[in-house]
């Protein structure tokens, strides 16, 4: 598998740490959580590491996946689940070795419902569960990629409310920026998406936010800096420099509220999110309105850095997505959860980059979290965890492969 041996740590100590490839093509989607990638590329953070980052905005996750696999993109702002699905060969392409270089953010995704449901008074989880279990037409929910984080948050949340995501509702794939248009056209009843598109729907009067992703799992893993494993093996110095540049940018953004606000201004530009500042800024600063008249300061809003806690590629974070693939029948058999996570998560490279910046790293590659349904995930028993849910689709397969 390792056709290109990784440069030895000694070679790095000896000073041969110049990026093998100084100019990198980096994919991103128009989402608030691409912030540290855009800031690293445009605000001199990459230059300091001897890199030029050419930002390539993508229209869909499937398109980005294909370009990562073909090598047209060196690395990308990517869904956690997407990297694992490609690595395990679930979905439209054959299995291809992938790597997670670092976490890019936690939190800041949301589940919205349509104005039609709002008018019918379906504004609570209980009301939605009642409707979903009534006979008649099934509700249709959109997510952004069959194995992506939004599909997993949507499924997890619905299941936590007693709604089976594969039997009680339909689910379809829609690119993030098109969610609002689909709601407006009445094609979908709800969706799960990253910001600013949930806030955008609320601002346009196209429904309301029913649940934030951080209410499902406070400080959940979300986007990663992903790449093909070949990139790490052929250009370990470029990969380390890239992590360092983006980590430094994420630290800068969270250094002060002014920096966060400037970041929102940068992101609203036509080359990036091409969306009004008023849509991006509030939730980026934790100021949430749900469209039902509730407003709150969210304690688990977008985290891009959090002293490095948002960036360490925990093995337990990677494993969690595999347990959900298993739960929903996307994986027919249990993978060797720990072994696969060790292959994909580039912990050593991340620790080197963090050390160079003086960013602290947790000793343990696992973390423990309590999710919305009261079930704890700490990475210790993935096999048992995948089987611990009342609602699942372990025995089935075809219906789980919606949109694949």
């Amino acid at each position, binding site marked *: 598998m390792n056709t290109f041996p990784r440069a030895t740590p000694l070679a790095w100590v000896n000073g041969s740490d110049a990026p093998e490839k*100084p100019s990198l093509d980096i994919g991103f989607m128009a989402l608030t959580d691409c912030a540290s990638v855009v*800031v690293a590329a*445009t*605000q001199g953070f990459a230059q300091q590491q001897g890199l030029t980052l050419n930002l390539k905005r993508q229209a869909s996750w499937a398109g980005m996946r294909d370009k990562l696999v073909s090598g047209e993109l060196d690395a990308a702002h990517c869904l956690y689940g997407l990297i694992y699905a490609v690595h395990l060969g679930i979905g439209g392409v054959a299995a291809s070795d992938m790597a997670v270089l670092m976490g890019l953010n936690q939190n800041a995704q949301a589940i919205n419902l349509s104005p039609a449901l709002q008018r019918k008074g379906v504004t609570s989880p209980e009301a939605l569960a009642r409707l979903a279990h009534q006979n008649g037409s099934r509700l249709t929910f959109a997510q952004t990629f069959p194995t992506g984080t939004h599909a997993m948050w949507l499924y997890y949340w619905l299941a936590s409310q007693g709604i089976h995501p594969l039997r009680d509702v339909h689910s379809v794939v829609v690119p993030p920026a098109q969610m609002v248009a689909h709601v407006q056209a009445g094609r979908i009843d709800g969706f799960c998406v990253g910001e600013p598109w949930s806030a955008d729907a609320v601002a346009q009067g196209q429904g309301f936010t029913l649940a934030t992703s951080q209410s499902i799992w406070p400080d959940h893993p979300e986007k990663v800096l992903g790449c093909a494993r070949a990139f790490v093996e052929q250009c370990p110095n470029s990969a380390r420099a890239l992590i360092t540049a983006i980590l430094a940018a994420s630290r800068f953004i969270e250094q002060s509220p002014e*920096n966060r606000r*400037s970041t929102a*201004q940068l992101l*609203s*530009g036509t080359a990036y999110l091409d969306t009004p500042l008023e849509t991006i800024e509030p939730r980026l600063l934790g100021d949430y309105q749900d469209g039902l008249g509730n407003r709150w300061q969210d304690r688990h809003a977008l985290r891009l850095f959090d002293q490095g806690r948002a960036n360490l590629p925990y093995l337990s974070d990677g494993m969690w997505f595999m347990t959900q693939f298993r739960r929903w029948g996307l994986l027919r058999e249990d993978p060797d959860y720990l072994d696969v996570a060790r292959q994909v998560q580039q912990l050593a490279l991340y620790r080197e980059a963090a050390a160079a910046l003086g960013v602290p790293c947790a000793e343990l590659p696992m973390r423990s979290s309590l999710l919305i349904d009261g079930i704890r995930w700490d990475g210790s028993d993935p096999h048992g965890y995948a089987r611990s849910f009342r609602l699942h689709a372990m025995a089935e397969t075809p219906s789980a492969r919606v949109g694949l």
Partner: protein
Amino acid sequence: MLRILLIDDTEKKVGRLKAALVEAGFEVIEAGGLTIDLPACVETVRPDVVLIDTESPGRDVMEQVVLVSRDRPRPIVLFTDEHDPQVMRQAIQAGVSAYIVEGIHSARLQPILDVAMARFESDQALKAQLLARDQQLAERKRIEQAKGLLMKMKDCNEEQAFTLMRRQAMSKQQKLIQVAEQIIAMHEMLG
């Protein structure tokens, strides 16, 4: 099918390559001699490979090759009877991807062209990376210069100067280098 621009610069115009190329199944577009404007010709024909057949590559040939490499880079294969290593070196320096002396067999053409194209691609990639490195270095110097000016003007430290520049750039949806250039230009004007 590979599209080949064939420049016949042999004295007798015997067209010794044409038959072999057609036989090997290539699409051949011929252009007579090197009196033509080669870069312009490459621009209109858009060939995959430029093939020059010449008994001895003189100054005119080299000139045209240099121009193509600079303005319309394409793989260039030179077929010639000239054995002189000095001439060969000059040709490679001018931007020729493959230099083939004598012996044209249609069976050998495909591998020769494949090697030339692979060689051309790796040269181009290397050039692009070198260019990126140069540009990066130049930008870094300009940013450092602007930061120094700002530190003096604002009487602040390095980190504060960087933060000021970055905030300015981000709120204007610009790159850091653009703000650095503005600071330097402003300083020159007031200086």
